[in-house]
Structures are given as structure tokens and as C-alpha cells.
């Protein structure tokens, strides 16, 4: 049996601390570096979504955090316990303190729902285990919490995909882990079940004060994150860089593959944005109307309509200032300074340029406070 971690329960620092972690696969000439100096710390109760293209090292980082493999270089600590070069026994001990949710549910089809959850429960040390009736009550409680109170004795193959993933979540949560790791938990689910599962994970994390690290490609559930950690080629990359890069890549793709369509889309979006944002705001009702009108009046596909809307809303949002938070004083000053620098680049700063800058400052709401 694995040694127990005396410090785990009382540890109140960051649940997961990664410092300059690097990782390689293979040996000798085939040795390939997967992670480069990755650093992050995850606080109790924080929901972090790990994004990035395939092969970026997301899953490697997650398996390191899950003590599924021993660290190689840099430091990786769970509940303060260093995992670099850790023994198998230490890794096993850490795993028992972590709730792991996989891409596919990986439930044992030979067992029923209750028994699958029981498999996790019985990993607790004997001294911490309760009586049979009490344990059953606890299992039923967790299953009720994930909305499966009526399915306790069902076989796994009698459940839908979403229900199975819920059982897997119940299994990951039964021991009240302080860290929950999820690898593409919604990948095999339809849109609605995926949404439910994501919301459930977020809710449970809040209730239990557990840290969540969630790897996903599913942009629909990014909103549950407190923080998004973007990996690319084994390095942490700023999210804005990544999104901007991705957006311009995609627009470039449309431009080269379908120039006519691109012109139509960009013209429409600019025109719509001007019309809709004439009153300097664009609300849900307007978006709905536009979607409706576009659907009826044009032969655009649904995805194309969404793209037009996205571009229109984005350019309107820029005029309104950023949607969630307005810019800080420092950023405002930087933007204004940049505008001036551009205007002065030709060595001539005329009144028309000054008027245009003032109009922009007014329009974007970026007037520095002390002006």
C-alpha cells in the first residue's frame, strides 16, 4: 500500500505548483522535448482550463499533475509534495488524493453504477472508512448530486454518454479530492450534455473548494474557467496572442479558399456593425434580429452567419471598450501614446490627425483620467 500523505489534508498553499518543468519522451537520438520550462500555480477553488493545439503538451502536463508519471526536470509539487523523481509508491499515494476525469468515462462495464463509485471509495485507508450503510448513503448522495439518484443500481450500458460521464465525475468526487483533473471531459458528449458536465464540474469545484485543471478543445465551455492556460509547442503562451493568431489564421484561410465569400462576409459584418452600433451598443435582441434577417435574406450557412455576427460584435465591442472590464489607466495612456506616435511618424502632425485622434479617444472611451 502507498504511504499516506500526512500533509495533504492540512496543506493550504497552492494545491498544484509547477516551476520550470520540462519533460522529454524517448531516449537517445529520439529524445524529444515535450514541455519547456512550464510554470504555474493553482490555488484552491480555482478553475483553470488548459488549452492548446494537439501535441502542445497539455495532456503530458496533466498527467504530470495527476502523478501518472514522475517529473523529470524542474519542480512539480502537489500539496507541497515534490513529484520529481518520486517513487511509484509516492505517486500512488498522490493519485488517491486526486479526482481524475477522463475523456471517455472508463467505467468498468462489469460493475453497476454504485460499484463503480465504490471502487474509488474503497481506496481510502481502512481507518477512514465508514460502515457499509454509511458508505452506501454517501455514494447515493454523490450520485444524487450529479443527477443520477435514480440510477444507482443500473448497469453502465444502460446509461447515456452524458450519464456515464456523470458517474465518472461522481467517482472522481466521492473522496472529496482537493484537486480535480479532467482530460477532455466533454469531448465524447453532445453539445447539451457537454454543457451540463462542464457546469457540474464548475459547481462542484466551487462547493468543495477544489482546484480544477481541465484540458479541453471545446470552446463552448471555456467560460467556466477562472484562468486559461494556453500551451503551444510545450510552452505557456499568452492567451491573447494565441486567440489573435488563431482568428487571423482562420480569416486568412477563408480569404484564400473563398475570396468572394470573404468579401461578402467582411462587408456584411462591417455594415451590420455600423448600423447596429449606431447607438453605441449591441444587445442580445439586436443580435437575434440580425441572425434572423441574415438567415432569411442571404444564402449564408449557419456557421457563416455566426462568423459575421462574431466579427460585428467584436468591432462594436472595441468601440464600447472591452466588454468585461474597461481599460486601466496605464493601458489607456499606452493606446493614446501609440496613436500619437503613428500620427507623427510622417514627421507632420496636422490638425486633421489631431481631430481624428480626439474622435477616436472619445469613441473608444479611452480618455485618460487626468487629462
Amino acid at each position, binding site marked *: 500500500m502507498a504511504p499516506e500523505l500526512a500533509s495533504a489534508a492540512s496543506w493550504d498553499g497552492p494545491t498544484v505548483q509547477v516551476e520550470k518543468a520540462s519533460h522529454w519522451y524517448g531516449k537517445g537520438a529520439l529524445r524529444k522535448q515535450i514541455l519547456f520550462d512550464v510554470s504555474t500555480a493553482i490555488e484552491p477553488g480555482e478553475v483553470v482550463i488548459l488549452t492548446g493545439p494537439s501535441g502542445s503538451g497539455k495532456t503530458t502536463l496533466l498527467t504530470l499533475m495527476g502523478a501518472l508519471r514522475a517529473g523529470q526536470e524542474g519542480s512539480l509539487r502537489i500539496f507541497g509534495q515534490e513529484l520529481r523523481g518520486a517513487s511509484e509508491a509516492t505517486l*500512488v499515494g498522490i493519485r488517491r488524493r486526486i479526482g481524475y476525469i477522463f475523456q471517455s468515462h472508463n467505467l468498468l462495464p462489469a460493475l453497476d453504477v454504485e460499484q463503480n463509485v465504490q471502487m474509488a471509495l*474503497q481506496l481510502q485507508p481502512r481507518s477512514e472508512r465508514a460502515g457499509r450503510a454509511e458508505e452506501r448513503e454517501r455514494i447515493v448522495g454523490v450520485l444524487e448530486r450529479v443527477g443520477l439518484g435514480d440510477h444507482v443500481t443500473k448497469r453502465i450500458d444502460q446509461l447515456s454518454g452524458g450519464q456515464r460521464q456523470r458517474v465518472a465525475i461522481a467517482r472522481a468526487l466521492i473522496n472529496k479530492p482537493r484537486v480535480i483533473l479532467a482530460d477532455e471531459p466533454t469531448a465524447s458528449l453532445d453539445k447539451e450534455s457537454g454543457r451540463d458536465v462542464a457546469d457540474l464540474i464548475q459547481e462542484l469545484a466551487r462547493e468543495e473548494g477544489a482546484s480544477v485543471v481541465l484540458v479541453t478543445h471545446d470552446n463552448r465551455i471555456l467560460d467556466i474557467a477562472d484562468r486559461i492556460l494556453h500551451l503551444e509547442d510545450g510552452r505557456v503562451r499568452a492567451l491573447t496572442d494565441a486567440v489573435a493568431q488563431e482568428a487571423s489564421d482562420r480569416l486568412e484561410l477563408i480569404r484564400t479558399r473563398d475570396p468572394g465569400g470573404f468579401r461578402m462576409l467582411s462587408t456584411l459584418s462591417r455594415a451590420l456593425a455600423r448600423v447596429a452600433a449606431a447607438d453605441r451598443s449591441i444587445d442580445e435582441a439586436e443580435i437575434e434580429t440580425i441572425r434572423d434577417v441574415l438567415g432569411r435574406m442571404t444564402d449564408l450557412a449557419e456557421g457563416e452567419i455566426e462568423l459575421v455576427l462574431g466579427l460585428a460584435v467584436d468591432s462594436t465591442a472595441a468601440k464600447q471598450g472591452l466588454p468585461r472590464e474597461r481599460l486601466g489607466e496605464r493601458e489607456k495612456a499606452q493606446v493614446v501614446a501609440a496613436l500619437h506616435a503613428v500620427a507623427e511618424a510622417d514627421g507632420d502632425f496636422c490638425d486633421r490627425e489631431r481631430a481624428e485622434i480626439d474622435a477616436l479617444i472619445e469613441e473608444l472611451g479611452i480618455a485618460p483620467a487626468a487629462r
Partner: protein
Amino acid sequence: MIRRVPLAWHQLRREKLRLLAAIAGVSFGVVLIFVQLGFRAALFESAVTFHTSLGYEVVLLSPKTDTLVGAKHFARSRIFQARGIDGVEAVTPVYTGTATWRNPADLADTSNIFVFGVDPSDRVFEWPGIAEQLDPLEVPDRVLFDERSRPEFGPVAALLESQGSLFTEVNDRRIEVAGLYRFGTSFGIDGSLFTSDLNFRRLFPDRSASHVDVGLVYLEPGRSPDGVRAAIAAALPDDVLVLTRDQFVAREIDYWNSATPIGFVFGFGVVMGFVVGLIIVYQILFADVQDSLKEYATLKAMGYTHRYLVGVVMRQASLLALFGFLPATLIATLLYGQAGAATNLPLAMTPERAASVLALTVAMCCVSAMLAIRKLGSAEPAEIF
């Protein structure tokens, strides 16, 4: 009460058809082992029926005699010499030979039959039914027939009962079957006749009274067979072999076990049964581990140790061993009955054999499990996810 999910059992029972195949496979292997062991034991047991059914303590043989069936002659005088040794109460010379028997129901049908010849006035065999029928054997050309002989000798018992008397030819000599006794067949003896020493020499004219095949020595009550045997051996020259009853039995078994391929053949059969069961159980366990790799890797990711998974596979193997063994024992018992009735061999299920086969079955399943467990190495969560 803290309970654990009996994962091994649930894993086994998940694929009903596979479980059934596994049980059938184990049972088949185990039945094979039972049959081989049964026949081997029956061979040995029947080969020594003569050795064990009589009341003697020490036996004299020719040194060239490996087995009763092929007993060589030695001088009858050695037997009389042995009677003079301290502790010897009586001796009985026994003549043996193989004769040609004509099936009384079909006189063209001949087969070889084993013949015992003993002086009826000597202290004779204690086989049931012989002592009471010694008198008729004083009459020339009369024999007793072993009613447990194989059927190719003809329906002797039935004919005797329906006709009251029965005549046939042995070694081309007309003889009368005066009665029946019970001896039984062995791998070397398909059937036997019992008659007087005089009648024996009538059947085998080239045999002289002074050369016998076996000398039975009876001791005074309370004498140690080992001591008297040593005394006889010391008193007699090397042209005769002196054995206790146990040594005689051991020599006979040793002959069948090693000097003939029969012992090897049955040993080989046991190995075959073992291997068949082993391969089937291995296939089943391997397939189960293979199908469950992702789930097992998940269990490891949750904090289960490799040892736990090894335990699951081992328990699966033990369950298969048990599930396979029970019906196999039942089938083997039935087969013993059938084969015993058909061959007149002493085939029966004994607790000792059942216990050793159970041990063999568990060993078989454990070896399969250890082979299948190697596959568990691929259930590494870091590699699978």
C-alpha cells in the same frame, strides 16, 4: 462491515459466453487429466491384483522376472528349501502361462488367456469362490474361469448358467469350465483360468513340474516379513529372487511404469491435459485483460497498485480453476464408471486423486494468470491517456 467490490468475479461474469468457454476449457483439461491418472492408477492397481489379493508375505521369483505376466521359471526345489527356513509356515508353488482359448460361443474365435496352476492340496488362494471349488479341479481337464475376463472370451458365465456345464478348447485340448471366480483384467491379462498343477501341465505339456514361476511363502503369525525374507535370501543361491509382498508390488509397478511406454504415455496425457487447460485459460484471461486495459489503467490512475490488478487476475484464475474443477470431477466420476464397466479395470474416483488434480488445476490456472499478467504492464495510465 467494510466491503470491497469483488472485481475479479464481476469481470469474469461480464462475458457470459467467454466464461462458459473458459469453464468448458478448464473442465476439458481437468477431465483429460483425471482420465489419464485414472487409467494409470487402474493399470498399476490391476497389474498387482494378484500380488495384493493373496495372503502370502514373501515371494520367490526368477531373477529374470520383471512382471507376473512374463514370469520366468526357476527350480521348484528352491521353494521347498525356503520351507525349511525358521519362521516359514507354508509354501505354494504357482505355475503361470498363456494359453489359447476358444470362445465357446464361436469356436473359430481364439484369444490368449492367462492360466494359473496350483496344487489344490496346497494352501491356496483366498480369492472369493476358489477355495470351495478346489475339489472339481482334481478331475482332469477342468478349470475355473474368471468371470471378470474381457468379453472377447465369450459369454462364459451366461452359458454356464443356462447349460449347467460348458466345454471348450484351451491349447487345443478339450476342457470343462467347472466354475467361476473373480479376478479381473489388467493391461497384461485380458482374462484368466485357474486350475490344478496337474491340469496345468496337461494344458502345457512342455512344462515340467520341477520348474515353477512364482513361489508364495506364508509366515508363522507374528514373524517380520523383512527378517524372514533376508533369512531366505541368505540361505538360497542367486538363481532365485526373494521379495516381500511390498517389494513384489513395487517391482511390478516399476515394470509397467518404466520398462514399457505405458507409464510415459499416461504421464504425457496428463501433461497434455494440463497444457490444453493452460492455453485456454490463458487465452481467456489475456482477452479479458486486453479488453479492460483502459479501465485497468484508470484504476491505476485512481491510485490502485499494480499488485491489486495482479490480484484480480489471479483471483479470476482461481475462480476459473474452481468452476472448471467441479463439473470436471463429476464428469470424470461418470466416465470412470463407464470405462470401468467397459474394461473391467478398477477405475474409481478417490479423494486423494481429486485433491491432487485440484492442486494441479489451480497450478494450471495460476501459470495461465502469470502469463496473462504480463499484459497488465501495458495498463499504464500515462501511456494510455
